């Protein structure tokens, strides 16, 4: 069965909703997804499935009163009831002085994130990927647990002011944890692509297996401050968390790491090492995304941190109006500048340090300082004189990305990780606070 809607079909369906509207204004979002997955563990397949769904969000407003309804049934009767219910909610809702109402048509960049090889994936192809992954582990007396998920999606938006936006995308995510059969070693690799042709699950699984075998016989070393080499998978969540906290309103209101004593924000101030530059670009060919946000705003290439200086904050439409600035939306990807070398080059140039391949269970400890806690996982190693000497037991860390990104020692070439481009990095004085027995 072919999935989904064409741009024309999506537009027509949303126009049907808009024609039903009796509100001052109406806005419709439509998101469709067809996906397949296979999950395996203990070197055998555990569950696999396929899902398809299309979800519609209808927002109606009377003045500054608004109501929102979502549904996934699109008969005339369903649509009528949903529109009527959104209007009923809007009439009942108190006025929201911050309600901005629908926007007029915007200009969007053209981005390409849909690829036929991903859209055409079959259950047999997924099973073969799982089989190759399991084989990589088995051949080294290891056990694999992994997950492959692909999706073929579309997103559309229309409103009663004539705005229309459309995007379609594909994606595939693959991750595998390989554990040695004696339970003393564990390795992990994750890959994500829009185009499945770029993904080699077997090769990724061999790397996870190598990490698992190498992480056996881990030795305990004292927690404390260490030079660390963070693989992108180990740093991406900390960097994303920091970026998510770069909202202007929180900073202006005094409840952000970017707020200043006495009022005002740290916009324009140098907060990080001068080698830190973070941008975003929905059109980047390595990490493409849709060119618009769920509220219809255009996403454009942006610089957030330039040579250590905070260059831009993101805004809601309301807050931008209050501050009389452009309503820059939050980024849809993060692109951190790096060097030209590889992870191996970073290791080779390290006199003493800890190589962290993955971090886990990261949670905010203090939003004021962006202090986060979390743990290393699935392969942590001691590096000495340019070589990995031995595995070390996992650590708990308590660290702030603001402190961490002031302590940059060296950056390698960025690689795609979870839809972002992040370089492997070597950092000084990373804070480990306790040891974990977990493997």
């Amino acid at each position, binding site marked *: 069965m072919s999935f989904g809607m064409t741009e024309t079909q999506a537009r027509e369906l949303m126009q049907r909703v808009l024609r039903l509207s009796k509100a001052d204004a109406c806005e419709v979002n439509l998101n469709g997804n067809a996906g397949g997955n296979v999950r395996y563990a203990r070197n055998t397949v555990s569950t696999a499935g396929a899902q398809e769904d299309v979800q519609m969000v209808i927002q109606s407003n009377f003045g500054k009163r608004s109501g929102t309804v979502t*549904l*996934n049934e699109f*008969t005339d009767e369903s649509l009528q009831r949903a529109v009527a219910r959104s209007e009923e909610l809007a009439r009942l809702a108190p006025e929201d002085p911050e309600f901005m109402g629908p926007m007029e048509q915007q200009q969007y960049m053209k981005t390409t994130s849909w690829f036929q090889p991903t859209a055409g994936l079959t259950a047999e192809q997924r099973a073969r990927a799982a089989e190759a992954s399991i084989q990589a582990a088995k051949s080294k007396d290891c056990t694999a647990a992994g997950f492959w998920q692909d999706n073929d999606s579309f997103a559309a938006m229309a409103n009663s002011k004539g705005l229309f936006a459309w995007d379609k995308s594909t994606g595939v995510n693959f991750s595998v944890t390989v*554990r040695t059969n004696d339970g003393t070693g564990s390795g992990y690799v994750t890959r994500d692509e829009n185009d499945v042709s770029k993904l080699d699950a077997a090769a990724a699984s061999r790397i996870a297996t190598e990490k698992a075998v190498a992480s056996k016989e881990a030795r305990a070393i004292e927690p404390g401050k260490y030079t660390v080499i963070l693989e992108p998978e180990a740093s991406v969540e900390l960097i994303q968390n920091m970026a998510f906290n770069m909202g202007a309103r929180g900073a202006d209101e005094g*409840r952000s790491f970017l707020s*200043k004593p*006495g009022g005002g924000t740290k916009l324009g101030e140098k907060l990080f090492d001068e080698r830190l530059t973070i941008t975003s670009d929905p059109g980047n060919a390595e990490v493409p995304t849709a060119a618009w946000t769920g509220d219809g705003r255009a996403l454009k290439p942006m610089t957030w941190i330039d040579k250590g200086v905070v260059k831009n904050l993101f805004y809601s439409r309301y807050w931008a109006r209050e501050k009389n600035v452009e309503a820059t939306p939050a980024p849809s990807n993060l692109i951190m500048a790096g060097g030209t070398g590889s992870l191996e080059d970073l290791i080779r140039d390290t006199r003493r340090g800890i190589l962290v391949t993955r971090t886990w269970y990261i949670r905010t*400890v203090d939003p004021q300082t962006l202090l986060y806690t979390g743990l290393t996982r699935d392969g942590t190693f001691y590096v000495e004189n340019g070589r990995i000497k031995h595995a070390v037991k996992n650590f*708990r860390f308590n660290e702030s990305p603001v402190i961490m990104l002031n302590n940059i020692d060296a950056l390698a070439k960025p690689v795609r990780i979870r839809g972002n481009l992040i370089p492997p990095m070597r950092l000084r004085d990373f804070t480990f606070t306790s040891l974990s027995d977990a493997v």
Partner: protein
Amino acid sequence: MQRRDFLQLAGAGALTVPMFGRPMAGWNGALTPIATADKKLLADTALAAARGAGATYADVRIGRYLNQFIQSRERKIQGVTNTESFGCGVRVIANGTWGFAATNDVSVDGIARAARQAVAIAKADARLQTEPVKLAAQSGQGEKSWKTPMEKSGFDVPLQEKADLLLATADAALTNGADYVNALIFLVNEQKYFASTDGSYIDQDVHRIWPTFTVTAVDQTSGKFETRDSFSSPMGMGWEYMSARPAGKVVTPAGATVYGTYYDMVEDARNAAKEARAKHTAKSVEAGKWDVVLDPSHLWLTIHESVGHPLELDRVLGYEANYAGTSFATLDKWRSGSFKYGSENVTLVADKTQPHALGSVGWDDEGVPTKRWDLVTKGTLKNYQAIRDQVHVLGQNESHGCCYADSWSSVQFQRMPNVSLEPGTAPVTPEQLVSGVEKGIYIVGDGSYSIDQQRYNFQFGGQLFYEIANGKITGMLKDVAYQSNTQEFWNACTALCDRRDYRLGGSFFDGKGQPGQVSAVSHGAVTTRFNGVNVINTARRI
């Protein structure tokens, strides 16, 4: 045309008018529950299609999932949202392998197609299968139904009343020292129909409610801000939870007011504002070993992370190795019969039947009647949480009834039941418990939380911290987090209050599985003391 007529016609192949795969005519389903008899007809269609395609077992879940969120920011209602999702999921065993397919095309043709797709997926994967599925026997339950016991559904309460409550909450916070307050009322209704080839047809109507807020107090001069989250809990209840009945109120020895079965959102917001403001002048904690006294509003989360998760059998067996992780509580420790998970004071029970708890239902999502069982008895590890395809590993022949899927589009798997710490048997009040502590910290409310993938090393924060010196609360502390090891921590449990102090905490968002699914779960506890816990100071300068 009545829906039944439509289904019969469609079943005869006479009428389907596809619109993006969906029937157009005769559909009366939108935003309206469909009749149980219609669901049975659809379910039987799926089961027959699965069998016809070669399945040896099949179950089907037809689900309508409703949410309502009402959000406020300061004195502004910022969003009123109703969400609704309707569809079906079919799970099968073919060639000894699971297969699953889900669709929002809940027509006779759509559901049969999903069933056949599930079988095709199972067959595609069967050649990789080295451990064919072994299901514990489950007798057919016939036609049954269950509904969350409640006085009044939150969905039936007028929107104005909910909005007024949020505005009163904001007003209470803003007039008592808070600069900002974000609040939310979150209602959930899962209408789910389960049928299986065992001969079960189970209709359940599950309700949950969660009012919550965060207040922020800014000190402009220092540029510092402090927050305090609400002391509400998500509950398996109706609107009666919001009734502020005095029976729900508990004043802790530290003076902070917390809540049991009934919640006073406005009073809590008033207190939260004052307490967030007071945090600015609280003493920064001295790192080191402290005895900690944990209120149930805090301890539920420690139970969740350090007991609930490690005793999930799928984790123990390695099925979650690639995401949530495995477990230190391995089968050899359990088989020994003498693994000391905690001290003699520690008895931990799993219970899918507990009143007001989020995880309580009549039957789980594979048609097993729910029950209560011991996980840890007087400190010794006794059992795990297991479902139909797992219990044979434990030499048991009956599922524990804790299988769950968060949507019609998600495959059901083992999820945490309500896991709770049993109260002490001797009469002890929180005041009496505190009076025996020489150097301690009293912690109220849940805060930051993190634990490793085998559930050894954890770190928890909280909302409010009070110093205890020589049996007396002496003042507020801040920058507190404690780090420990699960077994060490539970073996340091030296005292508990009695059942009078028993309260539930919980979460709507326990995450597990790939694709990720959430699950709502409660954890009961009384105020409990743990000796000699490592406390760190979390203050930093950036």
